[in-house]
């Protein structure tokens, strides 16, 4: 009986800590998503006000949010019914990195048309992932 009670207590403790980890990851994701939104707004503002520094700062801020999405940890933060699609989220984050890198390269080379096209593609990646993962 004592053993059984100990086992039950241990399971409850484990389940609780798993839930806590998941909640931590979700909180982190929500924070990252808010930062992503801010960085996209910053890039757009830079484009509209002809400020390449602002665009580059936005790109850097965006890249700072990609670590979780790129890693295996992404499984923790996806909705339960979409966990299986974590590789899609990883691919999206890879593309976000690719386009934001290219945007900085394009700005440095003075190719603003290409930089703004990169911004368009970044936005497409965001909406594409939201359509898929959040069943939008």
């Amino acid at each position, binding site marked *: 009986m004592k053993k059984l009670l100990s086992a039950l207590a241990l399971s409850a403790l484990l389940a609780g800590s798993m839930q806590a980890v998941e909640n931590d990851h979700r909180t982190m994701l929500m924070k990252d998503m808010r930062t992503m939104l801010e960085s996209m707004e910053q890039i757009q503002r830079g484009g509209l006000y002809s400020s390449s520094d602002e665009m580059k700062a936005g790109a850097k801020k965006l890249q700072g949010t990609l670590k979780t999405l790129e890693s295996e940890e992404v499984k923790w933060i996806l909705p339960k019914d979409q966990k*299986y*699609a974590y*590789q*899609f989220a990883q*691919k999206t984050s890879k593309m976000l990195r*690719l*386009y934001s*890198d*290219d945007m900085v390269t394009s700005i440095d080379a003075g190719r603003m048309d*290409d930089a703004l*096209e*990169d911004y368009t*593609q970044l936005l*497409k990646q965001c909406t*594409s992932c939201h*359509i*898929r993962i959040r069943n939008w």
Partner: protein
Amino acid sequence: MDRRVFLKVVAGAAAVAVSPSLIRGNLYAADGRLYVGYEKAQIVDAAGVPIKVSALEKEVTYIFNYPYASTPCMLINLPEPTQQEVALKSEAGEEYVWKSGVGKDRTIVAYSAICAHQLTHPTRNDSFIQYVAKNKPTMAYTTGGVIVCSSHLSAYDPKAGAKVLGGAASQPLAAVVLERADDDTLWAVGVLGSDKFQDYFRAFKPEFKEFYDGIAQAKTLVSISAKTVKLTEYSKELIQY
């Protein structure tokens, strides 16, 4: 130039202008629209040896790039004969007719591997689009035997000109028009349907720098031959839902 010759030239030019596919003497689309003839390219293996139609494994996705160096296409030997004279419609509402597969049993088909929805395509790193064998499950459709884009779960019918069966895609995949020669070799001669090549070139410029040394190389037209390998060899990782 005498009057008879002059009239022949004018009539010929008018016919070609109305229906460009007549240049090759073949009318693939019902009215000649949505067909673009490209340089005829022989499908060869990685070593450059011409592929024999009879040697293509059933239900395996092969990849070759056509009509451009960077535009991937799927080549599939289906388990059963394709339908014939399939009426299809592009997202712009243009109607066209996909004739059928080629080969003795009309089982050989080829389609652009660029998804009509959001341009998902196989790269050297990964592929989210592929043919799913008949006995395999997919979340995109009720049965296997379909082409699935696992990005947003679009399903296409390879037996019917890649008609959309489900998901967000709004038009069929563009079809590669194939010709099987008497010696059992296979040739790509053109593209039928609404292709997404220009959108693809615009959207994936940074990727072309990584895989093709830039956009100019990526836009090079394929000539003489097109190498094909199995998708499992083309992409490091296959993702299928």
